């Protein structure tokens, strides 16, 4: 059931009594957002999972009946026998990783079997840049000309959330702020784990730490009567401590309803589930996971080989949705993946793959229209660099999420003319 605003206020009020701090922004920000999109959409969260480095789509969603695949990937390809079949033509990577027996993408296959996965084939943009940096910026800004400063979800946030001042409306579990969330008016904290989203004090004198935190709050609370800039930043420390306090509090005693894998992505997805369950008005939660720039030894059987990375991704997503199910939150969450490019069709001489163009991506949640959007990759009609052509422009991918999940004016954010791909269930639109 979607939360009504009344539910939200009740829940957050109950929560505030735990933290003993009043998050003025948590209530006010949600109210403003709710008024603009309606109560149901206002309770929704979008989770964005960035696969950094350029994920090899051909070894992720495998065209296992295409003879051309067996030829170009004779060395590092996934054998048909190791594929988790989705259709007569496509299947997920089912390779086991050393030290375990779980097929790499068994978790996503389980979600697929519950009609909770949409796969969009061949996503990219025209005249692909094969540079990590340029292509990432293009994906972040949704602008191949790189004229946009703000990210595509930053533009969404400015329009939908504005100056709500809720420091947890958009959060990035990332070393630095992903440009996707660069906004003019919405402040987006980024941190890798909660240990860094806190006011650290002197490790040599732990007994003095509480005094320091209390003094930090006190010195941040008094509006300075000098200039506007000062009053803007003088309350920030208080908000930072309040939001950190809330997150630390919700974390303690949290019972995860899913088996998250060890490592940064499992920890990040758990943290995202915890933020969602804190009911603090989080709208966009962003997490990065790296290691996909597999120029060499892509097929190594360890955890950092491509199969191992996919295992981590798949198990993390599965655990995350198990956890949401256990907390009654699946209805309110949609997850999408992206990566700056796919990889070269023909593998290279180092048992790896070089930079490519289009790739499939995943949309996961109760709200999807399950299925595969687009055809299997055309391995025999490549561009002059030996790369795949584009089936679905990434702005269609983004636009479908914007208009159908976030209830936003996608044309205002992305420009018009990007066909809706239809992967969000009509019951949610």
């Amino acid at each position, binding site marked *: 059931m979607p939360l009504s605003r009344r539910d939200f206020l009740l829940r957050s009020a109950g929560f505030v009594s735990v933290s003993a701090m009043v998050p003025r922004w948590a209530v006010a920000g949600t109210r403003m957002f709710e008024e603009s999109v309606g109560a149901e959409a206002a309770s929704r969260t979008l989770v964005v999972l960035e696969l950094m480095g350029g994920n090899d789509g051909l070894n992720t969603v495998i065209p296992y009946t295409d003879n051309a695949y067996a030829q170009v990937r004779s060395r590092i390809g996934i054998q048909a026998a190791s594929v988790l079949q989705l259709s007569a033509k496509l299947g997920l990577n089912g390779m086991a990783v050393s030290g375990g027996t779980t097929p790499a993408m068994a978790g996503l296959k389980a979600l697929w079997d519950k009609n909770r996965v949409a796969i969009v084939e061949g996503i990219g943009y025209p005249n692909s840049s094969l540079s990590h940096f340029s292509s990432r910026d293009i994906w972040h800004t949704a602008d191949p000309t790189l004229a946009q400063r703000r990210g595509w979800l930053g533009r969404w946030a400015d329009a939908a959330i504005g100056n709500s001042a809720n420091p947890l409306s958009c959060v990035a579990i990332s070393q630095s702020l992903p440009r996707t969330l660069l906004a003019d008016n919405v402040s987006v904290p980024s941190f890798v784990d909660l240990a860094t989203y806190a006011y650290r004090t002197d490790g040599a004198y732990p007994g003095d730490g509480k005094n320091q935190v209390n003094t930090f709050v006190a010195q941040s609370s008094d509006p300075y009567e000098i200039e506007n800039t000062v009053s803007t930043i003088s309350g920030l420390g208080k908000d*930072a401590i309040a939001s950190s306090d809330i997150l630390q509090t919700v974390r303690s005693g949290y019972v995860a309803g899913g088996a998250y894998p060890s490592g940064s992505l499992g920890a990040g997805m758990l943290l995202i589930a915890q933020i969602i369950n804190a009911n603090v008005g989080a709208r966009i939660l962003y997490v990065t996971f790296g290691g996909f720039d597999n120029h060499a030894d892509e097929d190594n059987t360890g955890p950092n080989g491509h199969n191992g990375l996919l295992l981590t991704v798949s198990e993390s997503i599965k655990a995350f949705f198990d956890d949401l199910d256990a907390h009654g939150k699946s209805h309110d969450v949609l997850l999408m993946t992206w990566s700056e490019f796919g990889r070269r069709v023909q593998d290279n001489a180092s048992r790896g793959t070089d930079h490519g163009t289009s790739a499939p991506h995943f949309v996961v949640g109760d709200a999807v229209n399950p299925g595969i959007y687009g055809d299997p990759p055309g391995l025999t009609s490549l561009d002059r660099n030996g790369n795949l052509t584009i089936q679905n422009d990434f702005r269609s991918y983004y636009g479908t999420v914007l208009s159908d999940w976030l209830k936003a004016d996608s044309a205002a954010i992305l420009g018009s003319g990007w066909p809706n791909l239809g992967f969000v269930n009509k019951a949610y639109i």
Partner: protein
Amino acid sequence: MTSVNWTRDAAAHLLRRAGFGGAPSEIDALYAKGLEGAVSSLVDYESIDVASYESALAAKNYNILTTRGIQQWFLDRMAYSPRPLEEKMTYFWNLHWTSGIAKVRGVTLILNQNKTERQYALGKFDDLVVRISQDPAMLVWLDNWLSQAAHPNENYARELMELFTLGVDSGYTQDDVTQVARALTGWTLVRGSYTQTDNYNGATFQDNPAIHDNGAKTILGKTGNWNGAEAIDIILNWSDSRGTKSGRFLAAKLWSFFAYENPSDYVVGQLGAIYDSAGHSVREVVRAIFLSPEFYEAHTRKTWVRSPVEYAVAQVRMLEGTSDFSSAVNSLSAMGQILFNPEDAKGWDWGTSWMNTGTLFARASLSNTYATNRGSTGTRFDAGKLLAGKDASTADKVVDLVADRLNISEVPPDVRAAWIAYMNANDDGSRGAWTNTAANVDKKVRGLVHLMLTSPAFYLA
């Protein structure tokens, strides 16, 4: 006409803005010079000998073949150079038009651009604009090296006028952009060792007549077979009844950087006139800013939000700390400013956009690492030295001493009271009493420094 009320606080303000702040002894020395002497000592910095600093810097062996190394190298200069304004101006140009390492992919090119910005920092604006327009990193960053007569690329021509010299509302048209792009064709690169997977290191500027557009161009109303230098000359001398537009554009930006944002037309007009009469001298505009009474008014002080870079540098410089800037470099990304890697050609926004709860904690984490470092490597300061020779017998005296050291004495009474309470507090929060012992200095003075560095007062210069 008011005159400047030259006080020690005014000298401290000048040093914060013209440099990155200083130790009490530096402020005393600057104050003793009087207004004009102080300003001259900062602005006419060529007379300051840097030989010993340069050799000390070289001895640190920062690896300037890496992004990390040139970040450390520049941070070190900002913190320790005996010419504060030279580094502050270089930093200004860095914010104004630095090229991003992510696209340029050539550490040495970025380092060379920084050196060019330093070499021409206070010279004739025209010289710097030409040098930057021919700078290999910039040629890559804004694509002019790919621009040819047959298919001109407008990227640099547009930003040259919009971001670097005139401003978007100055009145030029899209036609002017196109014509300037044509004039700039031929300013390209010899690619050196560059390959797609390598980087642009080794690329050098080349004026290649074979790809230059030799047709007539009309730029801002003037028609001729202009080349790049002539186009820049036309742009920088484009005038209306109030003088050059480039002068007012640069004056407004310099004033915004050194004093406060959105200066009045009067201030901009006065400074623009100095630019015009002084042959487009950046130095004379900067000197005029620092000599103006308006620069010292209360509403000018403590209004500049320190960028992450300034934040990292100022705390080292003002506490006379020691640093290899390794911890600062590690924190740049989380604080929101990866030096030499802006998101786009516009560079970073200034002001409160630096600050969110995540970057705040990142700043606090950096300062905590600094304040609690008792080792012999990394970023550190001598806590005992802050009180040496001073009356530190009571908590309020210690608070005032350290606040003065960080130039944050003017805080609301509640904040000062909170600091004093901290100094007196026992671990259980109950009220105790500060005593000046080595153990207390190690615990509470370091704690106080961390608090003060993370107070709103210190976010502002």
